């Protein structure tokens, strides 16, 4: 890998007006689409594939990748301001981002999430570049057995995101996992809990579930409470550029957390099948777990915004790795990207290293530049939007509910999801009303299906032996250590009389 090639690729990207235009256009479209709930990066690529027909290979790839890379940066906007996640990946940001908006700190939360997204994206791209020579043996070490234990590890974080209500948190996590089992069983093909409802055969739609459990209850709560999202007046709240800059600086104050969660994001991105939502929730859980005094999580802790946002963007760099070099998509978004690459004439595989390394580096630089560009653009766009948190609920609620319905319809293009929304929303409201933590639900529904699918595969491959594979043992050790730590901390908090409220 030569420095010369790295730099010449950067120059090729930024000195070519066409490539620069495609990257800017991709970034702009990605930001608009990212802010619309239900569309997200995956659907955005599918929607815009016709746009790249007949386009130059490099320009087309740069366009799609830039767009996909920044949808997460814009997705946090509605998560923080209205409690409405752009897609499943952004749901973790709600847990602390929305309470910050309620405290009049939306500007600070948005500043932190923008900077975290930007840094995460750049670290993800850097990791992609650095890992090129060593990636193959690492990826090959991971099999369904390890995926199963990784999913279990993620599920154990339920204990940390449940605040003081651990029993309730575990129950809600199990509830999410049970819902994840709805649909065709991956092993036998039997339609579980779905009978003749064909729309459920593919499983419960994550976006609909997240909107029902988080967004609708928050809007009903806002309407019942009265007033605006921000509980403090506009004069007292932090809406200035200064607040946004303070949020951005806070990211640097927690740089070690940023680096850790970025690397976790990259790692999860590399592993095909774990998905982006897993990355943001595992990193959120890690932030709570690794914090000495986590009592503020769930009440508007800036670390609860930083951790999932860095992971959200850094995972894109990671997931590009197996997509480009093995033709194995690292995420569902990358699966569609893979198809787009083929349309453009890019044949993913090991020959990308030997024959098309210049193109690889252009794509890496596109990731870096589009992430930086997105942060700069969003910095100017978000400030006036923060004022929406001071608009009366009576005016804001109908529009947010319309966005929720739109997101539900768009998620899979099925009207039946509206019925699911109607069924699950009162459940979400009951959880909110009776002080049950809601984040474990998403962890359960995201990781439940991954755990099941991996378990079946691992069982079919190795039987009982999958428990004694070296990496499985390491991951099992981590799981037991995590549980032991959760119990220890619960006991310690009880001794100190500390109360945690998450969700």
């Amino acid at each position, binding site marked *: 890998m030569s420095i010369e090639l790295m730099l010449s690729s950067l120059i090729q990207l930024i000195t070519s007006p066409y490539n620069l235009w495609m990257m800017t256009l991709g970034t702009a479209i990605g930001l608009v689409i990212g802010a619309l709930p239900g569309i997200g990066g995956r659907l955005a690529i599918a929607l815009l594939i016709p746009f790249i027909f007949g386009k130059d290979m490099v320009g087309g790839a740069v366009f799609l990748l830039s767009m996909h890379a920044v949808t997460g940066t814009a997705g946090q906007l509605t998560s923080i301001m209205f409690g409405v996640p752009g897609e499943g990946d952004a749901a973790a940001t709600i847990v602390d981002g929305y309470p910050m908006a309620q405290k009049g700190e939306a500007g600070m939360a948005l500043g932190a999430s923008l900077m975290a997204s930007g840094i995460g994206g750049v670290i993800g791209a850097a990791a992609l570049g650095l890992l090129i020579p060593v990636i193959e043996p690492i990826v090959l070490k991971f099999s369904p057995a390890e995926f199963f234990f990784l999913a279990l590890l993620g599920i154990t974080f339920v204990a940390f995101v449940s605040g003081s209500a651990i029993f309730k948190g575990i*129950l809600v996590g199990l509830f999410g996992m049970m819902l994840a089992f709805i649909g065709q069983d991956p092993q*036998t093909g039997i339609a579980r809990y779905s009978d003749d409802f064909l729309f459920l055969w593919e499983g419960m739609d994550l976006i609909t579930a997240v909107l029902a459990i988080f967004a609708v209850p928050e809007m*009903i709560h806002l309407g019942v409470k009265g007033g605006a999202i*921000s509980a403090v*007046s506009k004069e007292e709240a932090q809406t200035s550029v200064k607040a946004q800059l303070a949020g951005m600086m806070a990211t640097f104050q927690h740089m070690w957390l940023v680096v850790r969660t970025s690397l976790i994001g990259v790692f999860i991105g590399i592993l095909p099948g774990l998905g982006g939502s897993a990355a943001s929730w595992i990193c959120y859980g890690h932030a709570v777990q690794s914090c000495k005094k986590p009592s503020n999580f769930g*009440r508007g802790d800036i670390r609860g915004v930083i951790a999932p946002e860095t992971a959200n963007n850094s995972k894109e760099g990671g997931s590009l790795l197996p997509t480009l070099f093995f033709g194995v998509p690292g995420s569902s978004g990358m699966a569609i990207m893979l198809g787009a690459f083929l349309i453009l004439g890019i044949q993913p595989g090991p020959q990308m290293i030997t024959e098309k390394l210049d193109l690889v580096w252009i794509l890496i630089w596109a990731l870096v530049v589009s992430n930086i560009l997105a942060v700069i653009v969003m910095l100017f766009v978000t400030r006036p939007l923060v004022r929406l948190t001071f608009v009366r609920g*009576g005016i804001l609620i109908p*529009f947010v509910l319309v966005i929720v319905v739109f997101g539900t319809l768009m998620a899979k293009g099925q009207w039946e999801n509206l019925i699911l929304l109607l069924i699950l929303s009162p459940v979400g409201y009951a959880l909110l009303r009776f002080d049950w933590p809601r984040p474990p639900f998403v962890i359960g529904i995201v990781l439940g299906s991954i755990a099941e699918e991996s378990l079946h595969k691992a069982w079919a491959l190795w039987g009982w032996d999958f428990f004694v594979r070296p990496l499985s043992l390491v991951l099992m050790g981590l799981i037991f250590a995590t549980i032991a730590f959760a119990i220890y901390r619960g006991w310690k908090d009880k001794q100190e009389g500390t109360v945690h409220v998450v969700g």
Partner: protein
Amino acid sequence: MSSDNLPRATTHLQALLHGRALLSLGMLIFFSVMVGIATTYPWLAGMLPVVIGVPGILLSLLQLVIDMRDFHRAEGKIDPRTAFEIYMDEITEHTKGQVKMEISGEKKELTTLVEDPSVVGRTRGQREFLLWCYFFGLVLLVLLFGFWIGIPVFLVAFLRFYARESWKLTAILTLAAWALMYLLLAVLLEQVLFEGFISGFIMENIFRD
């Protein structure tokens, strides 16, 4: 609500039907039904739902016992309301003035509520009921008449009759939102959204030719 006026928990039924316990009871029923159904599946398909569901049953049972025990123990001495209910009651009791609220350990002024016309003259329960009715109405409108017809009807109804905004503001906001969404979604992104059962039927049978 002062502590003298707090309701006393006397019977098991009262404790069971108390809000907090009801949710645990709901969870218990949910897990039991899911496990029951899972036992009818072949071993491979039903294994994990049973493995996850059985601890769910045990935990929800335990939580139910804890909730009922807490309710009995309270005997009117502690506030049986949830944190959410206390929060809501505090706000609604102070709609005519400023209320000191504790948010994340800091005392902050809450001043926005007095200006909200959607709150005036409606109790918490009424607002809660009305909001759910509007939400269910929105989904029903979209299902029957489709996204592009259902949305403006809902916006006008909500803004005018729930939020009590003027006709002028209602019309401006509805038109602006509809036009923006149509431009972005239908024109630029070329998205075809659900057209609704009644609208679809009319389009299919009346305007087909």
